[in-house]
């Protein structure tokens, strides 16, 4: 086993997903078997290749302010589960 149930609990918490005990057991087994399969890339000889970032990385366009856009703010807000006074509503994150 290269991955433990404690690891999976940590991963679930990092990625903000609640799992049942049964799911943790199942995911541990499955993720372990996938990692077992992908391990094989360790045998690739990469001496000739310098570690580098992917070629297509952070390809950005100019961020241009444009008020004449489709969809407009109103229809985007309509997609949110909870809205108040033209703002997306979330539970408070600070006490007081």
């Amino acid at each position, binding site marked *: 086993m290269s991955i433990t149930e404690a690891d*999976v609990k940590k991963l*679930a918490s990092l*990625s903000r997903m609640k799992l049942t005990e049964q799911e943790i057991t199942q995911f541990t087994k499955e993720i372990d078997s996938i990692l077992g399969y992908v*391990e094989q*890339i360790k045998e690739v000889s990469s001496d000739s290749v310098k*570690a580098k970032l992917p070629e297509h990385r952070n390809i950005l366009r100019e961020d241009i302010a444009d008020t004449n856009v489709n969809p407009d703010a109103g229809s*985007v807000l309509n*997609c949110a*589960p909870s809205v108040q006074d033209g703002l*997306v509503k979330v539970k408070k994150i600070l006490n007081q």
Partner: protein
Amino acid sequence: MKDIAKLTVIEIINLLKSGETSSESLVNGYKKIYEEKNTDINAYLEFFTDAIESAKLADKKRAELLTSGKSANEIYVEFPLLGVPIAIKDNIVVEGKVASASSKILENYKAPYNATVVEKLLNAGALFLGRLNMDEFAMGGSTENSAYGVTKNPHDLERVSGGSSGGSAAVVSMGGAPVSLGSDTGGSIRQPAAYCGVVGLKPTYGSVSRHGLMAMGSSLDVIGPLAHTVEDVEYIFNIIKNQDGDRYDSTSLKHEDEVKNISRHTFNPEKIRIGIVPELMNQGGIDKSVIETLNKTIELLRTAGCEVKEISLPHVKYSLAVYYILMPAEVSSNMARFDGVKFGSKVEGDDLLGDYLNTRGELLGKEVRRRIMLGTYVLSSGYHDAYYNKANITKDLISSDFEKAFENVDVVLTPTTPTPSFKIGSHSDDPVQMYLEDIFTVTANLTGSPAISIPAGSTKSDTGTDLSIGLQFTAPHSREDILFAVGKKVQQLRAL
């Protein structure tokens, strides 16, 4: 008129031009097939009730243009898909329609805008029949991961249609639409096309704008068409390709520029050079019927004047491993947007963290959660070098294998999948077994190359049904033209 279930896009256009049929009668025909077959097959998640209205509008527009003195041919130069029905995968957004990506988290999400491909199709005069089932957020190879039930294979209802664009392949195969759009991150157009006996094109990465396609693996995702023939797939690709003014998808390419840049690859359609890869065929796990279909097709192509050469792609055996590192890494970051705050459904918790945990824990399916955690793992500190960086290095080695190969051949030929369609439920307990079905397809996503799956044969199942077998051709970047040439050749040779 030919059976509507088998009509191609090109035939439909000719029938509309000559006035032998109307868009309204076509939509009624597809609706009838939907009503007869969809309960069993489950290709459509929704058949749009306004499709018939769109058809009437298209018929009216055609009549008006004819009255104004335009010839039918002129009309179809201006609007190459006027009144042609098309169905789309549920992860491509159409303004005002639900786009669920077959997930519970977007069950009631209505898209507030059109994807670039949708915009391009509408401008060409197309009309949308409905939205198609898929694996949740395109993660899977069988549509068994849909929150709305599996799409069954029209050739054998005990078997899967493939995935993730299973609905897109099954709808064409069952005759419920002449053409569909799918998306392909690791084989999600080509694998279901092979299982359902239709043609599926994964275009060059960047040749079709991803704006309005729900992101899965952003460096791998591409939208493409599925249809009965190579000619249809080519026709639709020519409409959906190209940029959206560099505005929304900054990785999208100007197709003509790209072709110009790589025109150093000279290609003689009379003597297509086809590379075959013995080392890939000898790795085991490939069904006998698939090997036979491949060998038979190689012989046909040889006799038709193609040059078939053995080539070596030494790093391709690592493609699947590389893919199952890079793809989940990108999934884990792309899926962060589903938090129950900005859009989609929400499951309340005690506090904001509780909202996140409940929403994502309860509304995302198992495969999606598995990939998010796997991606989080391979990107975490301590493992980043061993997995993510090593995978990127190996990806570059795979790309250079192909660059070398394309110095001597025009296309690389492999099976699309190692086996024909499998029985529903037979792979669901073993994700690695399921992932192995992608072994031939993921490579083109890693290298960005265009690839096409062409129906090339069939085999009898244990219950006597005919299971389709597809072969895959891969070409250099932006050389879809080579895929269409060789694909048409296979079609012709099989028809003889």
